[in-house]
């Protein structure tokens, strides 16, 4: 427990005794729930070794299903961030433009794609590709998933870029203008390099959102990513639904924990290094809860 808490004073003897009581009660409650869950699973034969063994001693589960699925997930995520990043940067800078005819369209695009669900865009893109392009049906889901993710995440990244630039002190662009830089020079040589450093952690966190959203394509469009592998695994290894979902979830969790840890390490590294004059755009966006307002000053 942190030394200073808004809520609790340092515990005295009575509070300490009470905390012990709570600890014991909570343990009992947890044990009760765990026992209930396990006995319910045992009732339905979900704890038998047969259901779990394939993941340990049959390497084909991994080489045929799980790892290729993970690869598809990573491929879709990498493609999405790769395309969304430049697009988002352009939109974000566009929103800061001095020209109304650039600023307003960029703003409309960003707000539009931010306020509709990714799934809608994926479903729509899938159908459009089916009707009006000759992309092969096997690879179409990947295209649809990437399209949906790019449209949504470009608009989120645009907001990250915008708040990154807005978090820089006004003196930076004033000083750049004072030494005679043009507008694009101010942006390219002074503001963007500093803003990129400030928003790197938020961008890594956005990757977590992208990885999670690829699973939508698996469930709705038949995209062969990690989650989608549950169909074949449960079909081939004796209806081990719970075991399969546990393993898939664990892979997702480990992957995302890795990304989250990297993001917070990066945030600390940048903060210590003072490589930017702006505030570090925080990594609290490790979720799809979005950026409502730019976090800097405006």
């Amino acid at each position, binding site marked *: 427990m942190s030394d200073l808490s808004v809520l609790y004073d340092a515990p005295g003897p009575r509070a300490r005794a009470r905390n012990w009581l709570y600890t014991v009660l909570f343990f009992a409650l947890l044990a009760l729930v765990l026992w209930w869950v396990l006995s319910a699973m045992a009732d339905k034969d*979900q704890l038998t070794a047969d259901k779990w063994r394939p993941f340990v001693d049959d390497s084909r589960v991994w080489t045929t299903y799980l790892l290729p699925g993970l690869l598809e997930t990573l491929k879709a995520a990498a493609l999405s961030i790769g395309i969304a990043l430049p697009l988002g940067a352009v939109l974000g800078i566009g929103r800061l433009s001095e020209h109304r005819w650039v600023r307003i369209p960029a703003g409309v695009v960003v707000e539009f794609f931010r306020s509709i669900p990714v799934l809608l865009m994926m479903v729509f893109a899938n159908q459009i590709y089916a009707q009006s392009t000759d992309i092969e049906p096997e690879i179409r889901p990947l295209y649809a998933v990437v399209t949906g993710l790019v449209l949504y995440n470009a608009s989120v990244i645009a907001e990250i870029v915008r708040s990154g630039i807005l978090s820089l002190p006004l003196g930076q662009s004033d000083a750049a203008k004072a030494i005679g830089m043009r507008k694009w020079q101010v942006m390219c040589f002074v503001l963007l390099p500093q803003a990129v450093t400030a928003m790197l952690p938020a961008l890594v966190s956005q990757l977590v959102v992208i990885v999670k959203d690829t699973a939508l394509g698996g469930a709705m469009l038949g995209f062969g990513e990690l989650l989608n592998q549950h169909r074949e695994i449960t079909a081939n290894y004796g209806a081990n639904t719970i075991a399969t979902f546990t393993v898939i979830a664990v892979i997702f969790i480990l992957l995302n924990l890795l990304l989250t840890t990297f993001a917070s390490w990066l945030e600390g590294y940048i903060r210590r290094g003072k490589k930017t004059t702006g505030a570090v755009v925080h990594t609290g966006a490790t979720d799809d809860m979005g950026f409502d307002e730019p976090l800097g000053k405006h």
Partner: protein
Amino acid sequence: MFDFLDQYDLWDAFWVTIKLTIYSGIGSLIWGTVLAAMRVSPVPVMRAFGTTYINTVRNTPLTVIMVATSLGLFQTMQIELGGGDSSETGFRLAVLALIAYHACFVCESLRSGINTVPVGQAEAARALGLSFFQVLTLIVLPQAFRSVVAPLANVLIALTKNTTVAAAIGVTEAAALMSTMVENESDVILLVFAVFAFGFICLTLPVGLLLGWVSKRVAVKR
């Protein structure tokens, strides 16, 4: 131009979306508050449980949770959440999954709200001789609640958009209807997309504007 809409019950689909949002919104507010209370409690086991829950569930895709409730909880474990026909059960399972997932974000918003209250406030209150509950209800929570309006509004908006994931387990909400419509009405597919996009903008934009305005009004000036 819009006569193709007559064959579909657009309002019904969006009504399911709204119901999903309301039920899981209330549910995740309750479960999120419980989690937040655990995460700031002086009992280490509760804090550990809260942290583990958050780190686990937040890093799992909502789609995985959603499909797991349907295939795992319902079909394998035969937990029906009160019975009824399959569409009712699907709806309840979707609400359960949405609550489990979004409670994490509610919890983190509330916790960050409590963290914005300076320690000096509580110290001053304790120095005045206020009891724990007085400190909590008179000093800390009023200030904390005012700073969590904006983050909670974001969670609500994200929740509204994430209800579409329920289509993955066959709940007949807006995204599921759109999925059928884009296939059947392939000649007006852009129009179909526009209608559904407009529907979701109508659901999310006013909430965002209203709660954004409220959060600015009630924000604690420090």
